């Protein structure tokens, strides 16, 4: 069973989703929860069975899909993808568990299960086309979730989300096709296998173009400035569960893809584009933090804060050293947990008051102390308080990038300042002061169902902040092999000097391409 655990992880929720159509409406929630729990347990088993000391791919599966065109159904996980998969399973589970009363709950649960399939698929795929399939497919359930259960502008938001990301990923698809073609020219065989592509050393000019093509797809997904404007709409209109999964998992696809595709395939281009991207990342960090500060809607604050944090992740990724990349991978998980939790928290208050405008609140700490406490914890995690999960990632990302540039790191480091400004301001507006609005006076505190989701998140937040090693160690191993690969593959002097050489005996088979045209 372990041989096919990834396939099981991917298709079990989908199959369950199909069967879900047969379930009676009132029982479907329990069904969904059961399925998601089993899925989560399976993902934990995956972790258990995962060998942290191996840096390469594990649980590889391969099945020819379109051998004539080099497309195979190839799966595998390494330390980088493992935890995002677990996180995806986890969030689907607690998302369903904490789902408030919703209309058409059956459709919602089924969509979530399908969404789960696509999420896990993206992170487990080792074939570019399989990756692309899941990548695109993930848009569909999300489109439905935002569009059917969202706020007043939901249709606009969902369509914008869909088309924007769709357009970006189509450009990426062209890039993938080029990559496959270059591989074909070099070896005479079509292949879309990512691991095969790793072995291809491209001339720098090709790398630059391909990097740009992939970048469009990834940057929109992340979303990077200036491609980020779909995100506030999507978050602002999406139902809680949609925002949670969007922020926690779907955005990570972009940053994950940078690490999976852009860095190891185009090391020279990565070095070439490092500073421009770092500047974009810094704009993301500061600019969106300022925009977040100006927001009047708490959910928008969290949404823009996501963009800001994604900036740090991007920065860490383009540190191109082990510290930075490990940090950014860890921060992906951390941001998933924390922003997911924050969106859940916003959902809690939205369920009660049906508004997200901060001026409608104030003094909630009096009325809902437990809520305020958990919110405060997540707030602190969000601003990067040490011993919370976010800090580890942020610290490592910034630390990593410091090796590349002092000044830019100082600018990026303002993340901890501007982040604190908008978060504290928002917290102050919502929780501090006196209760001024009558409806707020008797709001019930968080209930058990909500705690079911929030407590585990809080525990993870602190636990991984204090003891990140169980996660960090496997990440580190995989990242080291990627960095070494990049170093070995790079052709320009600049790249060789920017990317550290770890020399830990990782053998790279070189396949050089003879001036592909």
């Amino acid at each position, binding site marked *: 069973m372990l041989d096919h655990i990834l396939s099981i992880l991917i298709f079990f929720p989908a199959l369950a989703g199909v069967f879900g159509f047969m379930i009676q409406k009132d029982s479907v929630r329990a069904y969904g929860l059961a399925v998601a729990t089993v899925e989560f347990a399976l993902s934990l088993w995956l972790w258990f069975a995962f060998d942290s000391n191996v840096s390469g791919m594990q649980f590889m599966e391969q099945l*020819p899909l*379109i051998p004539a065109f080099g497309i195979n159904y190839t799966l595998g996980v390494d330390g980088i993808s493992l935890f995002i998969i677990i996180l995806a399973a986890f969030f689907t589970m607690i998302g369903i568990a904490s789902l408030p009363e919703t209309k058409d709950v059956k*459709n919602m649960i089924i969509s979530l299960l399908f969404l789960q399939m696509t999420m896990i698929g993206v992170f487990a795929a080792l074939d570019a*086309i399989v990756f692309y399939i899941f990548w695109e497919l993930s848009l569909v359930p999300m489109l439905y979730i935002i569009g*059917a259960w969202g706020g007043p502008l939901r249709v606009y938001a969902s369509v914008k989300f869909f088309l924007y990301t*769709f357009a970006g990923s*189509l450009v990426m698809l*062209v890039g993938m096709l080029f990559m496959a073609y270059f591989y074909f020219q070099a070896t005479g065989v079509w292949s879309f296998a990512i691991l095969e592509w790793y072995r291809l050393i491209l001339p720098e000019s090709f790398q630059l173009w391909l990097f740009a093509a992939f970048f469009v797809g990834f940057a929109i997904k992340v979303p990077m400035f200036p491609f980020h404007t779909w995100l506030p709409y999507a978050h602002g209109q999406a139902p809680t569960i949609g925002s949670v999964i969007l922020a926690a998992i779907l955005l990570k696809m972009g940053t994950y893809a940078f690490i999976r595709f852009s860095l190891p395939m185009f090391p020279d281009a990565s070095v070439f584009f490092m500073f421009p991207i770092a500047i974009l990342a810094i704009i993301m960090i500061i600019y969106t933090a300022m925009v977040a500060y100006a927001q009047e809607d708490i959910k928008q604050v969290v949404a823009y804060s996501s963009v800001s944090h994604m900036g740090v992740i991007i920065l860490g990724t383009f540190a191109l050293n082990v510290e930075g990349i490990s940090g950014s991978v860890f921060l992906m998980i951390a941001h998933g947990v924390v922003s997911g939790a924050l969106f859940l928290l916003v959902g809690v208050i939205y369920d009660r008051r049906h508004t997200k405008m901060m001026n409608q609140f104030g003094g909630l700490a009096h009325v809902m102390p437990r809520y305020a406490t958990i919110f405060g914890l997540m707030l602190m995690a969000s601003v990067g308080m040490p011993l919370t999960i976010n800090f580890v990632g942020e610290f490592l990302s910034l630390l990593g990038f410091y090796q590349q540039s002092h000044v830019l790191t100082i600018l990026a480091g303002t993340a901890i300042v501007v982040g604190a400004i908008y978060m504290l301001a928002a917290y102050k507006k919502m929780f501090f002061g006196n209760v001024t609005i009558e409806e707020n006076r008797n709001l019930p505190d968080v209930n058990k169902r909500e705690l079911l989701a929030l407590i585990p998140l809080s525990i993870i937040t602190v636990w991984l902040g204090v003891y990140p090693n169980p996660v960090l160690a496997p990440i580190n191993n995989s990242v080291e092999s990627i960095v070494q690969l990049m170093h070995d593959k790079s052709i320009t002097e600049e790249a060789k000097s920017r990317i550290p050489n770890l020399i830990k005996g990782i053998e790279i088979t070189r396949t050089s391409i003879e001036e592909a045209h």
Partner: protein
Amino acid sequence: MLEPINVSMESLNLMTLAPMLIPIVGALVILVIDMIKGGLDRSLYVVLSLLFLFMDFSTLIEAAGVFAKDGSVMGVFDVMLIDGLAILSQFIIVGASMLFIPLALSHTRFHEFSYPEFFALFLFMISGFQFMVATDNLILIFVGLETSSLALYTLIAMHNRDKSFEAAVKYFTMGALAAGLYSFGAMVFYALTGSVEIGKIAAVLAANGYADLAYVLVAVVFMLASFAFKLSLVPFHTWAPDVYEGASAAMAGYMSIVPKIAAFVVAMRLFEFLIHSGVVWLEIVLYIFVIVTMTAANMWALVQTDVKRMLAYSSVSHAGFVMAAILIGTTQSNSALFLYWVLFSFTNLGSFSMLWISRQKHLPAHQSSDHSYDKFAGMIKTSPMAASIMGLFMLSLAGIPPFALFWGKLYLISSAVTSGYTVLALIMALNSAIAGYYYVKLIVYMFMKEPVVGNDGHMYVANATMSLRTIIGLAAIGTIFAVIAINPLLEFITTFVYNSGY
């Protein structure tokens, strides 16, 4: 004096005629049956047509076997040409027709299907298409084209309401103009080379080194114009939306596939050699055609309020997309054309069939046209299964993986990439994104809007019968599980295209 001519039967290769003769025989049989005893039910004719189409299909399989063994076959005084393209396109023509004909057994009665002549004309039309693709003689192409077109005009008009007549008249008139253009183009080719066979034309032109370039260009212009009409390339597309709207949904779906693949094959035969012999002008013009058709049709599809009209424009856009294959002109791209079209057949027939089963005879007050977007509002609430399937077809048309059409797009864009048409590949990709909008728009209506009060969902399946459901089911399965079929399909198509020398 004329000498008597001896012709041996072997040299005629009469088996090359078999696939075309079967539908003709079938049509005659239907006419005869109707003469002997009128008033028989349409189901009889449906099944008879289906039977003949099956026979047709099996002779095609036979022919495919022969081709795989011996390569291209010329027959009957070298008029017939059975090569890979002919076989592949006939597979699509006959296959799509087989999927189409059961749609006649709708729950509600419509005018055209009460005629036995409908089925006879339908079969004649198929044979016309088959002749058109199975020859490289411009005369036979012309005659086959006209046979099928005349039948098609009639089939559209037989729906018997104002819009369908209007559609038929428009189609007919423009078709007549296109016929004029075609004959003029053929005339110039003939004037240039003294031949009306594409192979010979190519040979003669090559031998002359394209000395009369201006003549060649005139010939190409007129040929291109007439095929642009048939393939609905902008600005020759203007008939398409009106005709699709006027025809019944089933017929519209059929029209979006079969006539076009026939025209594509002829265009491939005709333009491929020109492109490869360095007529740069043609390359530029096709490039313009491809981009303008894709983009403009997409833009118009965006602003439609009727789903069928939207699908009409989308078909125009898809035609432009596929035209890129002819522009690129490599084995990969030509294979991609066929692959794309096979997958497109499933998806597009499926989506038009979905419209067909929701066809009502009388429109409710709030509905402005047969298939306005409003009609589908909140469909997920009232008939979730139908909505999901419709959504599936839309996603496939939009090119969302892993549904059928994605693979076509993938392979086609890849062929552009492989041949160095980078900009074209990007434009194709971005156009897919624009197209995403109008497909998603329908999904938005179906999944995200509230149903109109009093809509119990019956109207979405008002016209459904077992046979219609079967066809939709087949299309849906084909769309979802396309990924399994891609590899054998691709290998098959590539072999055939390659062995035909394209």
